């Protein structure tokens, strides 16, 4: 093994073997899944009764498609007999009101769901699948009647069906105690973006600080002198960042697998008793599928980009943190140097949270390009769809920043790691960069 590999191995193994790492890695997924499932389980326990949903279909095309099943009863009401102002009164008798205001094959947004309580996931999924199927039929029928059923036209229709923008999107509204009607904030895209943003923020903070601690420990211990008599500083620097980064990826990977397995197990456990009663395979509720349909989120892209941004963001910040660790030799000075970095990360995090409300606004746009904030903020925007050029530009900026940062950081590191007893000024650190 080369010295670099040995350093990576040491950094990796010594951390992965730690009891705290093993415990955190194995138990956090249970906590996550627990937090996610408990409310769902509780609602299942309570809601054993059949729910009646009023369907107000102005087109008259869709109402017939709804078959009562799985604890949901659909009742078609005449839209004309019911002025909009009176809708609110209805939800005493009905669990929810589904309003279809136009031809969904033309306007996918012409549907809304009003309820007093948070509409259950299954209900949204069921409505979505029924309407999607009908819209698909409609589109095929339109194609059939147009008489041009060549391959190009079929492809076009298939594209429209598969394309996210062609999917119907249900706006859900909730009525609160005071009778006010508000758009429900359960937007999947926002939720997904928020989770990934938080994950990247968390990992950059935790693992960046870990790199800094590791560098400082070596410096304080003076072990760095022994190391540097054998390996080049740049190898030590890179080895440290890669070693700690691999620990982060390992943890993330195990979390991903465990959460997937636990969620899968939980969904089998919760869905199984319902299967025999419905009998029909088409009606079987598949959470994962429903999730995907409901949100129309491109999971593969998001997960891939999550990893790319995770790695890029980690590398940029780990280089910064490693430089701080090398430049200082006591905890007080560390605080001072860390503050600006922490400030930027926190800013990125808050910009990310703000961008959930406004994923295409100027703040979200600029922050998802600026390399110090893009790993965190871009995660929020991805589920809402981001133009390709923005993604490419943002990634190019991120990784070229990393290269520049690593080059500068390695130079400062090389000098700083052997300096003791005084706090370097920024001016001095710039001088270090120029040293041969």
């Amino acid at each position, binding site marked *: 093994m080369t010295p670099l590999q040995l*350093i990576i191995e040491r950094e990796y193994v010594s951390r992965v073997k730690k009891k705290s790492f093993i415990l955190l890695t194995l138990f956090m997924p249970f906590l996550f899944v627990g937090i996610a499932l408990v409310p769902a389980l509780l609602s299942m326990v309570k809601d054993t009764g059949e729910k009646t949903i009023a369907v107000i279909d102005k087109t008259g095309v869709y109402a017939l498609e709804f078959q009562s099943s799985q604890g949901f009863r659909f009742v078609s009401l005449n839209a004309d007999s019911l002025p909009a102002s009176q809708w609110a009164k209805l939800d005493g008798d009905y669990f929810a009101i589904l309003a279809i205001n136009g031809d969904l094959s033309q306007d996918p947004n012409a549907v809304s769901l009003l309820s007093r309580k948070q509409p259950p996931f299954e209900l949204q999924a069921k409505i979505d699948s029924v309407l999607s199927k009908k819209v698909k039929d409609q589109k095929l029928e339109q194609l059939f009647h147009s008489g041009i059923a060549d391959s190009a036209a079929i492809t076009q229709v298939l594209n429209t069906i598969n394309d996210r923008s062609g999917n119907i999107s249900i706006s859900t509204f909730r009525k609160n105690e005071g009778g006010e009607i508000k758009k429900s904030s359960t937007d999947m895209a926002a939720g997904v973006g928020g989770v990934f943003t938080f994950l990247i923020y968390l990992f950059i903070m935790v693992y960046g600080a870990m790199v800094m601690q590791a560098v400082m420990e*070596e410096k304080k211990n*003076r*072990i760095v002198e022994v190391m540097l008599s*054998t*390996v080049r500083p740049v190898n030590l620097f890179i080895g440290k960042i890669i070693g700690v980064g691999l620990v982060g990826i390992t943890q993330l990977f195990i979390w991903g697998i465990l959460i997937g397995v636990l969620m899968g197990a939980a969904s089998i456990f919760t869905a199984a008793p319902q299967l025999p009663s419905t009998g029909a395979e088409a009606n079987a509720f598949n959470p994962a599928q429903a999730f995907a349909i409901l949100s129309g989120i491109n999971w593969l892209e998001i997960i891939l980009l999550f990893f790319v941004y995770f790695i890029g963001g980690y590398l940029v910040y780990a280089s910064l943190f490693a430089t701080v660790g090398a430049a200082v030799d006591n905890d007080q000075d560390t605080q001072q140097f860390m503050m600006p970095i922490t400030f930027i990360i926190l800013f990125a995090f808050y910009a990310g949270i703000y961008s959930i409300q406004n994923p295409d606004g100027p703040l979200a746009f600029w922050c998802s390009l600026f390399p110090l904030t893009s790993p965190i903020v871009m995660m929020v925007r991805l589920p809402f769809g981001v133009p390709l050029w923005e993604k490419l530009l943002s990634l190019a900026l991120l990784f070229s920043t990393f290269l520049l940062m690593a080059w500068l950081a390695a130079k400062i590191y090389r000098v700083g790691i*052997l300096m003791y007893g005084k706090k370097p000024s920024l001016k001095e650190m710039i001088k270090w960069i120029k040293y041969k």
Partner: protein
Amino acid sequence: MYYLQTKDVVKQYAAHCALDGVSIDVPKASVFGLLGPNGAGKTTLIRIITRITAPDSGDVMLNGQAMTKEDVYKIGYLPEERGLYKKMKVEEQVLFFARLRGMDAALARAETDKWFQKFDIANWYNKKVEELSKGMQQKLQFIATVIHNPDLLIFDEPFSGFDPVNVELLKNEILKLKAEGKTIILSTHNMESVESICDNITLINRSKAVLQGSVAEIRNSHKSGIFQLKLHADTFSPPALAPFALLSSAPSYDGLEVRIQKNADTTPAELIRYVLQTTDILSFEEEIPSMSDIFIQTVKN
């Protein structure tokens, strides 16, 4: 044949000059003392030899050749400040360093066993470093330094923190390494150990090599002509026109102890003849200055 040489090494830091044209010649299979007051530039010179920092100008030659990157594996360096990974286990730590310097894992394991037996710490294998006493850590660090069987060993203050028994053990190990043909550079403030194990020294003061040579030669050349005599007499007063001066005299139970300083052009034989004119001599000895005296004297000038 010199194993290690530095030629006119200059290292300038922003505020001061750490080394100003320092040349040293370290013969093969010898113990070489690198002496000097704190801040004189010893650590900088060692860091240049170990290639931790690069000199501004000057060369480092190993075995007659300009030193290369690969040569660092031939060096074992024990820095003054002890550094070990505190959370690592004892054996892992030594193996890590051995492998880092290009040693095969199986061989490293065998060597580790050997050294642990020798230093009597075999039952500490699975302890974490932070659980060891300071002395134990010192031993461990010494082992980590020599584990890869390097030809050049650099020990910076190796004896600090050791009890007399372990100092002896360490001295013997250093002499054994020398007997095996290794070249050893010893940087220390412990002048007693310099006298007992160093063959040659260089004294660095204020970034310059101010005194170089073999320990015996240096001590001889620093003789100041002071003699200690024990005389069979109650009092002693030198004859008129004697070629020496009486420095002190004090009676003891078996004679009179006197210290005299001879004139520069007088031989010891003449000295004895003069003294014998008045009293009998019980013992006669020339004072050879200690390295400590030489150190202080050189640095003060």
